[in-house]
């Protein structure tokens, strides 16, 4: 083992807040911990003079609050165990990277980027702890997939002279040549090749190609008949990436029953095309489905882009790394939109299992394969989005959390980015780009390592014990920020490139091949690609998903200027080949041809799958929800539920104010209640805004997937309207996260949902501009007793909405603002409780967790709702509304509570006045999740004007705002049924996540 010359340990000389926060967290988790001291450690393996060493160490330690040791183990006065967490060899170490840059700047000479600096964190823990406790705390602090852990007790630490100076160097002894892969093999061997990957010489497999027999046959036929040879591993891996479910959406493209053109073309794309046709001159779509994001008109001079991605499988393995990589990845879908848009906001959505559930699950029959607990996943994902957004200077205003036990095997992590780009750049539409034959292929940003190899094919497989550890990457927002600024703020304006796309799934193999469609073909010299460490095989360089990279098409006469500009901004950029008009893709490695394919085959050779659906027997519903004896208590219980409770701890740690565009924020009113929509104002000199929201109802999916999708769309639309959006300037994004998608019954649900996506997008005139699907969110492993268990996520459709707000001054928050304001409810309330949050609570309190209570899933009447929304939009535009909230999960009761809590004002409400209430029980009126409803408070002086706008529509004044801070609700017979102080409501609302 190589040892570092120097080890520098930096420790705090004043109260250690990080250590104290960790101590408090460990105590909450049940450990007897009295003190935690944290150190930041650096291995510096370089020849330094004594003076240089001293100045390097001094540079790493703040002189006011830190001190350091060099090659002498630090030890606080009190500790029982010492724990060190560092990265595994080859894992991105951002801290070490910065430390090395600072050292180089100080020393005025280069240090070896691969071997000179490494970082780690030391934890010194005191308290009544056993060895087992210390090991468990270690598990809490590290992730075995990306980090290394060392736990020593005090005597061991002293005897060993500290944690040691072993360098975590990458040692790879792969063959760095391309191999031929024999496809002329028996069918079962070929099938295995597709499932487990290319065999190495030692018989081990490289990891899934995720190619089925249909695809493998097509590949074999192509090589046999057209190329008359076997493929190289580079070619086969590359085809697998390009044809992956992740990249080609094979299920959405498949023939489904009698639908020859498949779900995407038939339902999603066709909805958009029809909406655009019907809108005619009012069509505001600029770029749909063809680029890295979708784009709509902001105003005459600007285009707004949006894209929502999922990063589920990586987040299950490494929640922090998976989530941060998801964020910086979808940011690149903005930078790669058109000629490069500037990211102006992030959005997020998390589907987790109950964070208080600590019952273990295992990937294999082995204690060491334990899945991270839902709490660890939640904490890691939240931290990942925090760092990804905050460090990039992109505000993260909009998001949601949703909980269901069925996300325990695989969480869903949605991340989206909104971008802004001038409509024209240098006189040409900014959304058009074209790589030209002869252009240099330039890779800019980070270097290439083994990170994320097989990410695209991995996401096409269910999560099990074979999940590859190399699928995990850690994004580096600062490297990307430097690159993003240099491209968007400088290179774009200077016209230094013809086209740009991001390196995401499939790495260079996908980005280069994708751009080559614009030019015709490409030639790449793989040895020119800068690597993080030596020893990568050519196929690995070609498909690696190392982060923070863009691929650009740069005219040869400008590539010198482009590369010099990047260098002056601390960004590495390298010419790795050129685009051609040859219709062939060619890759060489040190002069040897390792890839030579027909472009048409690569892009269009994938045979269309043919799939069948089969209607499943729906679940049995228990229509009669037991009526609660205390409706006020039921309301308080609802506010505590995971899916309704406030998550301020997330909103406040995501910077939503950076870029100063925040207008409607994630928390409303003095009561700080989480909002369902956000508005940003991207250009301070324009009053136009962008409204962002979403809707999802996974709890409806098994009961009625069609209505589930309809409700998701209605909610995404309605939330945007409630904030100040316009129905005529609203677009949608679809993210399908399905499960077990080879199963005809799951495909039936998918088809139902997609049919509703078509019907309701057309009915509302809201086009889809971008979408993404993730079809295999299943977990196959073992339960706490090591019995086999399979967990599939509920079919989950996230509909995100993005709209242009004509004037941000019309926007409104949910908080009640003044006493004696009238409270209006628009829309009819029906008995629609199946799959509702109230029904879930009822089934749990009846001790029948999982049983499906309720009458039916809400039916959406788009025509009636659209009239209401247009009237509501007019009311907001005329400034008649003093508070505005959409009724979602938890229905009217929760909406009333949210407005009351946000404004810290009370209300008097009569349920008898609710439109549609006549036949209904009070608890149903309060908690039914009927769509299409909005709750507003209106100054008495504006009441007549407000009512006039809703003439002939269901709209009722159901109560008034009061000053005494009590929410009073009377039943249909006028008897008081709820009387809850706003402070009590807030206590319940804040209790669930109070410790996070």
């Amino acid at each position, binding site marked *: 083992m190589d040892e570092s010359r120097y080890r520098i340990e930096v420790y705090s000389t004043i109260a250690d*807040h990080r250590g104290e926060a960790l101590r408090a967290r460990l105590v909450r988790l049940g450990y007897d911990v009295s003190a935690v001291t944290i150190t930041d450690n650096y291995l510096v393996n370089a020849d330094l003079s004594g003076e240089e060493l001293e100045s390097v160490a001094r540079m790493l330690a703040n002189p006011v609050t830190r001190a350091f040791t060099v090659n002498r183990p630090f030890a606080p006065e009190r500790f029982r165990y010492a724990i060190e967490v560092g990265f595994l060899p080859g894992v991105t170490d951002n801290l070490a990277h910065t430390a090395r840059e600072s050292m180089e700047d100080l020393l005025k000479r280069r240090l070896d980027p691969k071997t000179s600096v490494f970082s780690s964190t030391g934890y010194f823990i005191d308290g009544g702890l056993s060895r087992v406790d210390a090991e468990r705390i270690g598990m809490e602090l590290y992730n075995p997939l990306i980090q290394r852990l060392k736990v020593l007790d005090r005597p061991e630490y002293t005897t060993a002279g500290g944690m040691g100076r072993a360098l975590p160097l990458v040692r790879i002894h792969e063959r760095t040549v391309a191999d031929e892969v024999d496809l002329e093999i028996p069918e079962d061997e070929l099938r295995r090749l597709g499932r487990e990957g290319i065999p190495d010489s030692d018989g081990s497999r490289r990891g899934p190609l995720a190619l089925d027999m249909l695809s493998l046959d097509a590949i074999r036929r192509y090589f046999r008949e057209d190329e008359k040879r076997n493929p190289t591993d580079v070619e086969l891996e590359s085809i697998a990436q390009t044809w992956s479910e992740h990249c080609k959406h094979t299920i959405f493209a498949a023939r489904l029953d009698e639908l020859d053109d498949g779900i995407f073309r038939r339902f999603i794309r066709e909805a958009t095309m029809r909406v655009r046709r019907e809108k005619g001159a009012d069509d505001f779509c600029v770029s749909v489905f063809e680029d890295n994001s979708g784009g709509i008109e902001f105003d005459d001079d600007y285009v707004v882009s949006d894209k929502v991605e999922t990063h589920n499988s990586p987040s299950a393995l490494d929640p922090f790394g998976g989530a941060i990589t998801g964020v910086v990845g979808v940011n690149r879908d903005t930078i790669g939109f058109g000629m490069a848009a500037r990211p102006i906001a992030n959005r997020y959505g998390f589907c987790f299992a109950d964070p208080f559930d600590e019952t273990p699950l295992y990937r294999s029959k082995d204690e060491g394969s334990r899945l991270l607990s839902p709490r660890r996943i939640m904490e890691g994902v939240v931290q990942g989005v925090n760092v990804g957004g905050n460090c990039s200077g992109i505000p993260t205003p909009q998001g949601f959390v949703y909980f269901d036990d069925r996300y325990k095997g695989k969480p869903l992590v949605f991340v989206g980015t909104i971008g802004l780009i001038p409509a024209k750049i240098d006189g040409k539409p900014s959304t058009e780009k074209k790589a030209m034959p002869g252009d240099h292929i330039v890779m800019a940003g980070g270097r290439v390592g083994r990170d994320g190899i097989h990410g695209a094919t991995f996401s096409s497989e269910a999560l099990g014990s074979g999940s590859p550890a190399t699928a995990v990457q850690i994004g580096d927002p600062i490297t990307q920020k430097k690159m993003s600024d240099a491209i968007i703020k400088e290179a774009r304006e200077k016209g230094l490139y013809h086209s740009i796309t991001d390196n995401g799934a499939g790495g260079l193999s996908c980005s280069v091949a994708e751009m080559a469609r614009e030019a015709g073909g490409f030639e790449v010299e793989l040895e020119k690609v800068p690597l993080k460490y030596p020893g990568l095989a050519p196929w690995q360089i070609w498909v690696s998903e190392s982060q923070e990279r863009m691929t650009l098409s740069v005219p040869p006469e400008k590539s010198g200027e482009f590369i010099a500009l990047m260098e002056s901004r601390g960004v590495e950029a390298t010419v790795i080949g050129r685009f051609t008009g040859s219709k062939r893709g060619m890759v060489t490695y040190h002069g040897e041809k390792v890839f030579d394919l027909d472009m048409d085959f690569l892009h269009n050779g994938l045979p269309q799958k043919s799939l069948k659906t089969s209607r499943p027997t729906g679940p049995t519903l228990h229509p009669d929800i037991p009526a609660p004896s205390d409706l006020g208590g039921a309301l308080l219980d609802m506010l505590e539920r995971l899916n309704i409770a406030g998550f301020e701890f997330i909103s406040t740690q995501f910077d939503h104010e950076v870029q100063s565009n925040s207008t409607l924020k994630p928390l409303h009113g003095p009561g700080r209640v989480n909002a369902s929509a956000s508005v940003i104002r991207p250009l301070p000199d324009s009053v136009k805004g962008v409204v962002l929201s979403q809707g999802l109802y996974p709890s409806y999916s098994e009961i009625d997937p069609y209505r589930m999708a309809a409700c998701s769309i209605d909610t995404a639309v309605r939330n945007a309207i409630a904030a100040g959006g316009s129905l005529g300037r609203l677009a949608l994004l679809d993210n399908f996260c399905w499960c077990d998608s080879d199963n005809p019954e799951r495909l039936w649900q998918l088809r139902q949902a997609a049919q509703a996506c078509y019907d309701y997008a057309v009915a509302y005139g809201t086009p889809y501009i971008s979408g993404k699907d993730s079809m295999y969110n299943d977990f196959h492993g073992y339960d706490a007793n090591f019995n086999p268990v399979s967990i599939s996520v509920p079919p989950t459709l996230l509909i995100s909405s993005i709209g242009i707000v004509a004037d941000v001054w019309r926007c409104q928050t949910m908080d009640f603002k003044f006493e004696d304001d009238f409270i209006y409810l628009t829309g009819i309330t029906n008995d629609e409780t199946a799959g509702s949050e109230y029904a879930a609570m009822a089934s749990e309190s009846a001790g029948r967790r999982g049983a499906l209570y309720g009458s039916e899933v809400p039916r959406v009447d788009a025509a009636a709702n659209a009239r209401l929304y247009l009237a509501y939009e007019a009311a907001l535009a005329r400034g008649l509304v003093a508070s505005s909230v959409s009724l979602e999960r938890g229905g009217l009761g929760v909406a009333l509570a949210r407005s009351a809590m946000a404004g810290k004002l009370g209300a008097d409400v009569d349920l008898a006045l609710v439109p549609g209430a006549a036949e209904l029980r009070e608890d149903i009126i309060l908690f039914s999740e009927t769509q299409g409803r909005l709750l507003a408070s209106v100054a008495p002086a504006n009441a007549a004007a407000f009512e006039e706008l809703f003439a002939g529509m269901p709209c009722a004044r159901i109560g008034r705002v009061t000053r005494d801070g009590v929410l009073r609700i009377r039943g249909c017979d006028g008897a008081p049924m709820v009387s809850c102080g706003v402070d009590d409501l807030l206590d319940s609302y804040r209790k669930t996540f109070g410790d996070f």
Partner: protein
Amino acid sequence: MAKPAVLVLTGYGINCDEETRYAFERAGAAARIVHINDIISSPSMLSEFQIAVFPGGFSYGDDTGSGKALADRIRNNLMDEFSAFIGRDTLMMGICNGFQVMTNLGIVPGLEAPIGNVQISLESNTSARYQCRWVDLAAVPGNPSVFLRGIDRLHVPVAHGEGNFYAPPEVLAAIEEKGLVALRYAKSDGSPAGGEFPFNPNGSMNDIAAISDQSGRILGMMPHPERNILFTQREDWTYLREKARREGVRVPVEGEGLALFRNAVSYFG
């Protein structure tokens, strides 16, 4: 009157440069965003500017300590030039990460000349978590800051993980004695936060949110005045608008953070 020229620094993860430029432009200055590497390659350009700003951001991802690596970049390449800049009749401002950079360069509090001696630190929030929230600030009477002339109270956001003001006892005493505390975290009625979260969002000693140097020409602050330039940037603007309408009062267009930038411009008027 010629518009004062403002240098808004950028590079390596600084990310509040655009809105900081906008604030100065709206206040009447001519502001330019300049990459630090461009200053390193032609340091004499500093002489063209009257005001220099270190904007907020995440320079170098806070690695090795917030603001530290960028401060080291300046210290290793531009220390003489920035000292000369401060030596002229100029203004300098650091916001959030920029304040952390200035702190690591020993520009504030600057108790002893020459600058470069680090005397204070912005430590991890006591919550050990990033805090993005609006706070109330009270200006400290007697503080000489040019930027805060005529300002008593300020409602602006903070957004940071490391804004917990720390100074060794003798330094803290000197800062207080010389009146260098410019802004303190307060409750909404203007009374002292008294270290209480969330009014004091990070645990800062003596509720210190901003300090100036002795001349009043240099200000370092954790909160973000450039994020309250427009009224619709406030977190409570929908309430205040409703209130103004009912009282028949004009609804403001601008935010109160703009006053700091106007003060800076007026200094050269």
